[in-house]
């Protein structure tokens, strides 16, 4: 267990600077504005007085290092990026209010993406070079250039307008209604995410099917079904976990855009509304919360992979491995593991 703790410590040591980097990036977002941010926020008709007042409110008068420490303190102690310039409500509260709907879409989309991608990738890999495989392999080319919002519009046209199976927009209340309202947006995000997922998953499965150990197990006359389910699927599962965690950022970003198409009041609407009112602290807050979520999800996934993979579970301390494994950790010594 001690080794596990050390591995976790290593992962955290890599995560902490990234979180700091995220905070720094969000801080400088406001400072990227060409010219005076206060003037930009207030627009062309602002008086010099009101601009000066806003500068003071945003803390733009203080020296840069002071601005940063203030910002950092706010983020660390209050999980906040300041009060909304429009409503005066702390950004944190606005985000916590709208986040659940977005989170619902993200989770639903993740489930749908897995449900779509895994069977298709499996069929393609098992019937390699068959017609199903060729069909599945064309998908990424089509899916790559598919803007999510347009996909959402198409889904609305077909399933909401023509067929009337789902509401055109908004989130309904009542039993089962939220799920029904979130289904189409989640499906749009899932469909957008599926093509690259299918592509990598197919490659993973083919690698696993081609692995030497599959030949060994087949030679021992173990049933093909058992080999696929117990061995091939399992060895493809770990890379898939990593793949999904890497795609969290895409999921969140996609959700925010799709919300706009479906008129759902989530994090995305908050972002776009703040942009239209030039509510800078809120824009910063949304960016910060999204990025931190991504970092946390990736970190957890990485730790989970460490627990699930027996090779990682043993820790990468060279003393615990044998023969070739040890050699492969030592640069230059791999060549000796003949």
């Amino acid at each position, binding site marked *: 267990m001690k080794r596990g703790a050390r591995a976790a410590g290593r992962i955290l040591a890599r995560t902490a600077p990234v979180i700091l980097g995220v905070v720094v990036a969000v801080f400088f977002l406001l400072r990227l504005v060409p010219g005076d941010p206060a003037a930009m926020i207030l627009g062309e008709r602002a008086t010099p007085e009101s601009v000066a007042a806003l500068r003071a409110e945003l803390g733009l008068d203080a020296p840069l290092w002071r601005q940063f420490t203030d910002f950092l303190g706010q983020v660390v102690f209050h999980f906040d990026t300041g009060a909304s310039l429009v409503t005066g409500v702390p950004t944190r509260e606005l985000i916590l209010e709208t986040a659940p709907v977005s989170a619902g879409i993200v989770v639903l989309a993740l489930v749908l993406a897995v449900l779509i991608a895994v069977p298709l990738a499996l069929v393609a890999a098992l019937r390699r070079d068959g017609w199903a495989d060729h069909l599945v392999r064309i998908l990424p080319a089509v899916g790559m250039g598919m803007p999510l919002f347009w996909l959402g519009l198409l889904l609305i046209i077909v399933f909401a307008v023509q067929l009337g199976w789902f509401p055109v927009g908004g989130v309904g209340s009542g039993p089962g209604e939220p799920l029904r309202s979130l289904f189409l947006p989640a499906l749009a995000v899932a469909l957008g995410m599926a093509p690259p997922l299918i592509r990598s998953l197919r490659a993973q499965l083919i690698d696993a099917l081609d692995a030497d150990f599959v030949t060994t197990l087949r030679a021992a006359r173990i049933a093909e079904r058992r080999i696929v389910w117990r061995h091939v699927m399992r060895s493809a599962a770990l890379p898939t976990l990593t793949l999904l965690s890497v795609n969290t950022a895409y999921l969140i970003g996609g959700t925010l855009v799709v919300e706009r198409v479906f008129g759902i009041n989530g994090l995305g609407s908050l972002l776009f509304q703040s*942009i239209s009112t030039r509510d800078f602290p809120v824009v910063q807050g949304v960016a910060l919360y999204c990025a931190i979520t991504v970092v946390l999800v990736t970190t957890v996934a990485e730790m989970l992979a460490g627990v699930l993979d027996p090779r990682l579970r043993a820790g990468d301390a060279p003393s615990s491995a044998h023969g070739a494994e040890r050699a492969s950790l030592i640069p230059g010594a791999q060549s000796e593991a003949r």
Partner: protein
Amino acid sequence: MGRVRRVRRSPAFIAGAILTALLISVALAAPVLAPYSPTEQQLTQGLLPPSPEHWFGTDQLGRDVLSRMLFAARTDFGIAALAALAPFVVGVGAGLISGYFGGAVDWVASRVTDTVIAFPFYVIVIALVFALGAGAGGIVVAFALVGWVGYARVLRAMTAALRESGWVRSARGSGFSHARVLLRHVLPNVLPQAVVLLATEIVLIMVAIVTLGYLGLGIRPPTPDWGTMIADAQPFVTTQWWLAAIPGAGVVLTGIALSLLGDGIGDLLRVPATQGRRGRSRPGGRAGARAERRGPDAPGTPDTPGAREPRSDDALAAGAVSVVGLRIAAESGAMLVGKRAGIDLELRAGESLGIVGESGSGKSLTLRAMLGMLPRGTRAVDGGVAVAGAAGMVFQEPLTALDPLSRVGSQVRAAVQAASPGIARRATEKRVLDLLEQVRLPDPARISRAYPHELSGGQRQRVVIALALAGSPEVLLCDEPTTALDVTVQREVLDLLGRLRAERGLTLVFVSHDLAVVAEMCDRLVVMADGDVVETGTVGDLIEAPRSAEARALLAAAPSLPELAAPAEPAVPSDPFEPSVPDTPVAPVTSVTHRASDSVPRRDAPALLEVRDARVHFGATSAVAGVSLRLEAGAALGIVGESGSGKTTLARAIAGQLPLTAGEARLGGAVLGTKRSRAELRRIQLVPQDPYASLTPRRTVGSVLDEVLRVRGAGPTAHAASRNLAADRSIRVRQLLHRVGLEPDVADATPDRLSGGQRQRVAIARALAADPQVIVADEPTSALDTTARARVLELLRDLRDELGLGVVVISHDLGVVHELCDRLLLMRGGEVVESGDRSFFTAPRSEYGRTLLASVARL
């Protein structure tokens, strides 16, 4: 030539290129093609459906949709191209530098990359464009800030992998600057991947620009843009759905075009697959090599009935094998086995048959046919195989032969259950432990709970044997079962197989490239070459009087170690390091010393290379723990050891590729610094282990050799350094090729067109081009077939005798060292166990040396 052919073979490239070209020209020609002005409003003509006048109808302001589509394409393509450029340059540069140099630079670059990746792409782009101001300028800057991470990540990983490859190490060893190595050797090999990425990134950027337009953050109206067109059309989706659908289709079409183009470019730029990396494991020909990588078909691939049938299983006694007229072909139709005539083999129950041959001779495929599991992409087209009873198989590579994610016990259990369906759980457990015990694994209960990576190579191979025995086979098929193992482990596994065979009366078919191993295990031998049986007979006959050229070649390549003398007097393990200096000086003599004798002045020829108490540590691990050696000009020193002995690490430290943690190396009396100068690097040249990874891909042999000469400033004659002309160098290149026994036209070939033996000789020529005093050859023959092996050894001997170079040979193969070296250093666990002259082969002084020599299979 080759490129044109490849273009024609990549439909993705053709389709992608045509489609992309079409889209771009349509966009460029928008002012000519567009029937109307894209901004001209005709409010009375709003929302018209598609018609001959307006092919795509009109929008709510009465503007012609087709014209707007064309002009929008122009805008969007232009911005996408502009926005894709900066990230490409920044990302490729960052990835190269961070992957190549590693260390602190890499750490910082990786954390910055992680930070940017943490932001959801749309969130950060939207926020950036908002801060920077909407429009083309903001979009381009935003992508420059964000888009580089994709390239940086992929290229960093690729570069870091290439950094450790033989050819990048050799380039450094030739005294090239970091900049030259990066730009001339690494960049050309990672650029294809970057270009493929570029295609996908442009698609991403296109989609993002359109999305930003849709969100009102992109191109400002009235300039037409697909995104704003969709946004404008959204209120009318229920009535005029095509208004939103058409611009979206434009984006999708662009995406398809660029994706296909990217895939196609990837196909074209990829170096054609190397022919069989490890000669030995190649089941045959080019197609065969590919087939093997793909793994086998489902078990029990039905053999196509041919003209002649093998005897039916019933007619055979249990354990007998009958192969009649077998022919195996690749899916492409190329015949792999049975080219001239189908293979016929008969084995009585309990008999043992060895199949020997070089790589590509079809021996492994024949064995797989007996198992009834031909590799994917190959099939039996004629004849058939009948095996009476069950067959089990042992494979070559124990490190990958077991599922790394399942416990050893569960894999054996599954095999037991497959062999006897419905077996009770307790009986299964007992049988699993029983099997593990039969293969002489210590503590079966513990092994059963272990994961494969917790076992050594030899232990894993025993588990594979247990899996093969689970079905209580009458026939055991072995495909190079000990090739990947160390000599002493090989001995143990061979003994185990021999004992199991005797105990169970198994019929054995044993495939190997190593005649000595096969001769030991089998009664009868079959020699295969190029898919055909060229000779059959008893082991004794074949060794006494080989009839075929192939058999003679295999026989000549078998290690011819002298008989090991019986340990006369008790060996002196007390001081195995004592140098044995012959009383009568024999010139040239290499002498090997160890720390004990450092102070003793040598009376032989002055040392060319001298290493004193060298230590190499990797973190807390000590790979080389205090090694001293001496080498004179015109002499050869062999460094022998098994996996993990530290011999390759020592070789790299001698060549200056790794810094010594402690101790020193001297060349011609002068101490070599920790950071060697380029001239010092050139003096000692390392020929890397794997000839398939030791030459820069895509570069012709001539240009590789020429580069070394140019950077060194060398002409055809020794004193012509000042006249460094291309013509002189090309003469010198030809001289070098001649020196290593290659034809001059090899200079125009790229490495992928050369055989393993040719590549190894080119690698030696490149080492010679640097004008070295010492050549360190790391396992110079382990990847080569028998004939190529003999010729490379001969070449090394010539270099030693004719050019008077000092030669250090690193090998696990005692036969190689015996053939080439005057002196020898035996290593184990980073330390020198024994050092001595050729008397080692008859009378080793250390216990380990004796074990090692006794383990070698001899004829």
